[in-house]
């Protein structure tokens, strides 16, 4: 690839369970204003030239959910394109618009208010086909429960270990100024939380969350002008698995391994377990932390249990932000992971800062049991 692309600024709203007092436009403006202030850029030909947004019509209960924020992202008589997938895909596409040479400076914004629907599960239930899988009542939570059953059976990861994943997530989240679930919990408390879809307990699950994220991506030449702390996107990969759960190896990482291979090949990485100073995994459910760590090559296949037992997450600086268990909307999971990795590589992670952080990997997933996986490698 001839060109390079960097993330030059990031901003996040604090995430919370119900931002009833702010509309999507308000959330978006909060973060857009912040990245504009960080960079001093306005909208226009010589400033922010275009926007890529991330949102979802069904979550927003609104056809063309990006229509509501056209003016707020500076696209009144300008360009805006919406990625309707996990936010890490927004990074993927925004990077492509710069690498292609079509734009030099692009604003990337994701927004979602999961609190607006009576049940998040009613939204993801609609992702199942109306003939075979919707009638049996599947939603992303049930799909994740089947994934957890399969993964725990194969890996011997225990419920106690998953409870400790949640305890650790809360501990880290308490040091993250935008995290939602920051109250400390004990293993016993987690294990006492109600079972929602066996083996997933309420505390094993990412909470319903509202928020927005913005970033500015720029070409190499512009990035050097905009910031003295550019974070380069050096690897991008993604992959679809099949749809029907029965056709997939739910205990494995078919699709994440391929997404990671693509990103690592691009970034020239051969030993992912020893490469990264910071790792952000989209752990929508506690079992996904060890499972996706295997898929990302942080530990051996089937090594998730021992990896947890040997403090792998702490040794490899995984989800120092608190991860997704601390609360982000589904659509923004991967985008927040990228944002948190960038904050680390910019040396702005405060109490959680990893010293001399040079290289990070951020992960995003969506679809039933992580059908679509995205991997982003970042370097400063």
């Amino acid at each position: 690839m001839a060109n390079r692309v960097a993330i030059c600024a990031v901003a996040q709203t604090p995430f919370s369970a119900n931002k009833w007092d702010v509309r999507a436009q308000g959330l978006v403006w909060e973060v857009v204003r912040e990245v504009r202030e960080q960079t001093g850029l306005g909208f226009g030909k010589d400033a922010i030239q275009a926007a890529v947004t991330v949102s979802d019509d069904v979550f927003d209960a609104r056809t063309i959910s990006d229509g509501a924020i056209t003016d707020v992202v500076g696209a009144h008589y300008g360009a805006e394109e919406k990625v309707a997938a996990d936010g890490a895909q927004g990074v993927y596409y925004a990077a492509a618009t710069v690498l292609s040479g079509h734009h030099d400076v692009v604003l990337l914004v994701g927004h979602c208010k999961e609190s607006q629907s009576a049940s998040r599960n009613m939204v993801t239930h609609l992702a199942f086909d109306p003939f075979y899988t919707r009638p049996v009542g599947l939603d992303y939570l049930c799909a994740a429960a089947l994934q957890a059953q399969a993964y725990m059976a194969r890996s011997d990861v225990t419920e106690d270990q998953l409870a400790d994943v949640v305890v650790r997530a809360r501990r880290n989240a308490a040091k993250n100024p935008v995290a939602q679930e920051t109250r400390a919990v004990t293993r016993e408390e987690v294990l006492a939380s109600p079972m929602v879809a066996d083996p997933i307990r309420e505390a094993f699950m990412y909470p319903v969350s509202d928020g927005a994220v913005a970033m500015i991506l720029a070409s190499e030449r512009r990035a050097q002008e905009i910031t003295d702390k550019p974070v380069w996107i050096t690897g991008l990969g993604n992959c679809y698995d099949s749809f029907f759960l029965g056709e997939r190896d739910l205990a494995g990482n078919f699709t994440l391994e391929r997404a990671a291979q693509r990103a690592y090949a691009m970034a020239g990485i051969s030993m992912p377990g020893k490469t990264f100073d910071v790792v952000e995994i989209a752990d929508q459910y506690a079992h996904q932390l060890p499972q996706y760590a295997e898929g990302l090559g942080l530990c051996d296949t089937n090594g998730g249990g021992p990896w947890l037992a040997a403090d792998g997450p702490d040794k490899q600086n995984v989800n120092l932000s608190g991860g997704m268990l601390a609360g982000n909307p589904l659509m923004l999971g991967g985008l927040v992971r990228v944002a948190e990795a960038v904050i680390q590589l910019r040396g702005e992670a405060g109490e959680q800062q990893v010293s001399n952080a040079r290289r990070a990997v951020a992960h995003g997933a969506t679809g039933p049991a992580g059908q679509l996986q995205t991997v982003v490698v970042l370097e400063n």
Partner: protein
Amino acid sequence: MKNRNVAIIGSGMSKFSSHREEVNQPEMIHEAVAAALADAQLGLDDVDCVLHGNMELFEMVHQPDMWHVIADGGWGKSGFRLTTGGTTGATLACAADNLVASGLHDVVLAIGFEKLQEGHTTGGITNMADPLWGRSLQTGALTGTGAQKVIDEFGVERARLAAMKYRTIMDEHAMRNRNAHRRLRLERQYIKETAENSPPLAGELRMIHMCSQSDGACAAIFASEDKVRQFGANPAWIVDHETVHREETMIFGSQVSTQRIAAERLFGRHAIGNPREAVDVFEMYDPSAWWGLDWLRDFLLLEGDEHLKMVENGEIALDGTFPVNPSGGVIASNPIGATALVRVVEAAMQIRGTAGEHQVSKPVRRALASGFGGTLWTVLMLLSKEKPACGGVAHE
């Protein structure tokens, strides 16, 4: 500066119809994907990214790309979903161009679809307006104001005749496109009667002027210059594209049109002063005969009544000097998430010489395709037979 050249090397469409009850969504999409691969003489292994788009609230399937993986070829490949309303198909084309130009992918399959029969189209469209202050008024493209604007400027008699002349030419084109959904065999001598006998929808906008509500899918294969050479493909090169949105109102009147802004920016970058001379054929997203008629002026940077004359003189006919919508356009077929990609694909077919019975008679060196969506948003794409020099132009 564009990083590298990109071309469309194959395309396919499903059958378009008001009711595709004999197929489900993945089956319908599969028709388009299989046709596109056959057209490009490629197998699925040659594709490395699958882009998907439609408008979810029409069918009420959340993230439908997940389900459609079983038939769109996405399994094990890269891909994701983009949607921007009616412009979705054009956005998919822009995104495919960006992804290949970026070097991230060599061969991208872009798929737009809609199965409007499975939902409530106008309900879905109304839902795009702000729930607090716009939803009770929102009808999308179903508006009488487009007609009124032309009537106010040119008088009711001339405006009505020109709109129906436009409509009739579009139907003559659709009659030559076997894939078109509505082929009515309208006759030029009965223009007045046809309009008068058509039920009014809103003001001077009548049923006969309005686009259809269709089921259908469209797929297009975009490839890098190296792959074009490797495959020995017949390419239609993507020269450039421009996206122009505006804020969330449908206020017409004195507003600057996104069509004219898109045209000025796109033609400006390529030193095109007279698009009617520089471009050989135009596939325009025309939601109604009134808007098709009106937008010609802005897209082609015309003044006064030049656009009316183009229609009145038959210049926009398939064998005319500036053919518009040889496919029959959106009034003939409108599976919304596919519609704007169909425009790009039809423009590419004219360049590749694969349009069959609706191939225009004059040689096609450059073709233009537009998308319409949201609150009067425009995407405009320029394609060429000749490979663009140095990968296009700088955007500064």
